[in-house]
Each structure stands twice: as C-alpha cells, then as structure tokens.
C-alpha cells in the first residue's frame, strides 16, 4: 500500500504547522528552478 506523502510543514518562530495550499504552491514553485551545485565526479 503506497504511503501518503507527508504534509509540508512551515515554522514561524516557535510555531510549526502544515502549509496552506497556497503556501505549498509557492514553495514548490520556488524549488522548481533551483540548480543544484555540481556534485563530485
């Protein structure tokens, strides 16, 4: 049985909560174009 993906969590100072759908969309957009630095050959 496939595991459900874990919700994305956001922390603001001491408070940790699930991201809202809008925050999830913004977060995914922000990491969509994030070139990884070169890995060792």
């Amino acid at each position, binding site marked *: 049985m496939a595991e459900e993906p874990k919700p994305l969590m*956001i922390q*603001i100072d001491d408070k940790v909560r699930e*991201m809202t759908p809008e925050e999830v969309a913004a977060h995914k957009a*922000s990491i969509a174009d*994030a070139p990884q*630095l070169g*890995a*060792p050959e």
Partner: protein
Amino acid sequence: MTYPTFTNGTVLPASDLNAIGLWLVKSQTVGTGVSSVTVTDAFNSSFDNYMVTYTGGVGSALHNMRLQLGSATSGYYGLGIYGTFAGTTVSGINDNNAAQFRYVGGGDAYGSTLRATLITPYATGLTSINAIIDTGTSFGTYVGRYYPDTQFTAFTMSPDSGTLTGGTIRVYGMRN
C-alpha cells in the same frame, strides 16, 4: 588592549559592557521536518549589521540553503563561487533578480548550516549578504545584495530540497 574578564559578584563597568561586539538578539530552535523557518524580530534599530548562524541540524536531502528577507520575493542579486571536494574546478552560480538569496548555506543528512553576515537589513542602506556555501559536497562563498533599500525585521531560511530537523538559528547584532 586588555580584554575584561567578568567574575561573579564584581561590578561591571559600563565601558566594558559597551565594548561587547556581538550581542545575541534571538535564538530559534528548528523543529522536525520543516520546509522553512521564519525568524521574526531578528533585526531592529539597535544594530546596523548582523551575523546569522544555523548549526546543529540536518537535512532530509542534499540541499542548498536559501534566505528570504521579510516578505520580499524578488530583487535578490548575487554570485556564488564554489567547487567540490573531488577536484579543483571552480564554478559560479548567480542570482539575478531572484526570489531570494539561493546559495547561502546548505547541507545534507549529516548536517546543515547557514553562516552569513548581513549588512544593514534594517538600517538605511541596501541589504547585503556574504555567506558560506556548504552542501557537504560543494563548498564556496556567496556575496549578494537586495534592491531596493528596504527595512526588514524578519527572514525566512529554507532548504531547496527536502526538510530540516533540529538545530538552532542564532542572530547576533554587531555593536555599532
């Protein structure tokens, strides 16, 4: 110059205390499996310049660490110069009106860090940053600037892959 040594029960001269260079403004523990951490009340009028560190935590995946000032989602410019431990080739990575400073730390499952100096994030003047790139495989330095001149009190740190668990973010003010 002779640096003071403080002992319990002795009078602390104002001149000694006023010479203390770094002041811990805020300390924030990072939770478990978080995709971002926002630190509010980090910057204020007491200090022009700050040092920000994140240590003691780990990432769920290899990641670069990003830093966003306040709620600003554009206007970040910078250049990182880095290499990997496997060789001596030096490469560059840039932020050209990016949504945040994108290469100001990093890590992996063995450890994650952010080591940055921020110039005038609150005081008048453009906010500048210099930071260490360290993903555990790639190492280098990053220098950047945010346009326009904006007064920030908070920042958000986040990995560009996976989540962070544990560790502490510390913000130190550099005495003016």
